[in-house]
């Protein structure tokens, strides 16, 4: 029994040392997002609290903690409180399988990519629950929009993942990274990378697809009735999800923790640094797009998802499969 307790203790230790960096980096990423947004619009962005305004998010978080949590009288109390918790938990739980280097991973499971996909597809529950439990028009409309949007774009993300898996022949995230040792998949599967990126924007409700919280139409969408810490949890969960999508993109297409070239001075840099750089690169793209692209209309969003991305990624899947089959490059299983 003591043995099990020891293992349990070790795991908890590992989990804490995974969670703290993620939460800190989420705070930093919020700052980066606002900063980039400001710079693109020729503003300064947050630059007052701490050096370069780095502690702005911390100050915001403190403010949220000390604010009162207001629960609407007509709300379904249990579901209302559960919703931000679900969002936050699901956003953090997915990080368990993200490999930062060959052995720096909390759970190196066989079906890592399916786990990521499953957890990201559960993310819609937090939003639906929050929107429904608020018992008010705008949150409900926002929740319905967001559920429809996330379910639609998940389909194309799934097919894009199948594209990559066809080339790798394994569902393990470390195997996916190692298979890109010679060539990052962003080169042969470039169209898929673009579609993945756009679908990730839609999946995380980022502009130009932030219709669930379109402030001109729906006040703040599903989080209209939330205040204080519960709002902050939605917000943290959202950004943790964005980071997760960036990590997923860098694992699937940009070679994860692999260095950019395997030659002498470059490959001395440890692999977590490469992973972080790639996540940051993708996040910068997210932030830039938020600043420069106007919002889509809802029917355009649905059309893009179902009528363009889905057929295109299906055709590309057939192409990839035929190419691999014809040139006998399909991954082999040794039995």
């Amino acid at each position, binding site marked *: *029994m003591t043995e099990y307790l020891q293992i349990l203790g070790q795991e908890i230790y590992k989990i804490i040392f995974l969670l703290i960096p993620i939460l800190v980096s989420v705070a930093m990423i919020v700052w980066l997002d606002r900063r980039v947004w400001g710079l693109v619009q020729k503003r300064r962005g947050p630059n007052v609290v701490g050096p370069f305004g780095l502690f702005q998010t911390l100050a915001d978080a403190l403010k949220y903690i000390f604010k009162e949590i207001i629960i609407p009288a007509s709300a379904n109390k249990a579901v209302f409180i559960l919703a931000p918790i679900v969002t936050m938990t699901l956003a953090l739980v997915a990080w368990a399988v993200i490999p930062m280097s060959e052995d720096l991973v909390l759970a190196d499971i066989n*079906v890592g990519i*399916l786990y990521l996909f*499953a957890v990201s597809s*559960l993310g819609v529950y937090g939003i639906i629950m929050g929107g*429904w439990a608020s018992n008010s028009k705008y949150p409900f409309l926002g929740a319905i929009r967001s559920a429809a949007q996330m*379910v639609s774009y998940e389909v194309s993300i799934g097919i894009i993942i199948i594209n990559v898996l066809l080339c790798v022949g*394994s569902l393990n995230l470390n195997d996916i990274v190692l298979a890109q040792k010679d060539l990052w998949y962003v080169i042969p599967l470039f169209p898929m990378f673009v579609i993945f990126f756009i679908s990730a924007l839609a999946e995380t409700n980022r502009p130009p697809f932030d219709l669930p919280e379109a402030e001109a139409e729906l006040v703040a969408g599903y989080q209209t009735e939330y205040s204080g810490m519960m709002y902050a949890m939605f917000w943290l969960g959202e950004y943790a999800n964005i980071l997760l999508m960036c990590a997923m993109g860098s694992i699937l297409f940009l070679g994860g923790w692999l260095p950019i070239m395997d030659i002498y001075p470059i490959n001395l840099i440890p692999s977590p640094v490469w992973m972080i750089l790639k996540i940051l690169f993708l996040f910068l793209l997210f932030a830039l797009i938020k600043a420069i692209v106007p919002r889509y209309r809802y029917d355009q969003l649905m059309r893009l998802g179902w009528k363009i991305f889905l057929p295109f990624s299906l055709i590309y899947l057939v192409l990839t499969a035929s190419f691999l089959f014809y040139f006998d490059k399909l991954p082999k299983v040794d039995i």
Partner: protein
Amino acid sequence: MIVHSIFFYFFSVIAIFSSLMVITSRSTINSVFFLILDFISIGCLFIMVGAEFLGMILLIVYVGAVAVLFLFVVMMLNVAEQKQSWFIGKKSTHIPTGLIVSVLILLELLVVVGGWKYKEDLMSSSTLLLSDVSNTHQLGLVMYTDYILYFQLAGIVLLLAMIGAILLTFRERIGVKKQSYINQISRNPSTAVELIKVKSNQGVKIDD
């Protein structure tokens, strides 16, 4: 093994409890949430016996897609508190139907379990090998060789169901403006702008 069995009982107690709550809870929304909990704990049980692929697929398909649709329907229809008319109402025709269906399901389960127990080569397969290959690979090897016909047939059945559902709910709506992207992009000033002389005291009709 003790930790393993603790986990097993943990998940199975949750699964049984939540499946009971699905049929007994008064509010339909709560039923759906308990159904989701049930799916998740059964997914965990799948993972515990080593069928990680099936567990994840259960999570993705049932929790990630099917239950979302359930939730949608329940929220949209606003079936608030269920009145207990199913059991109390005088013309309750639900109980016989329910009984017939559940007895049928029980018989089917008996047939399946019995067949599996007493006919040893029921699941025989030339491709099923017990080796170090992960169970995703094994599933693929079995499904795409021995059972390829059934697999494809299942796909066709699902496709037919999808087409049927679309046909049943499809209705042509009149008077809805549709945006044609090709027309919109190929517009140029000569076709888009028109100069009209408006007579005084008479309106002009634009946009037909």
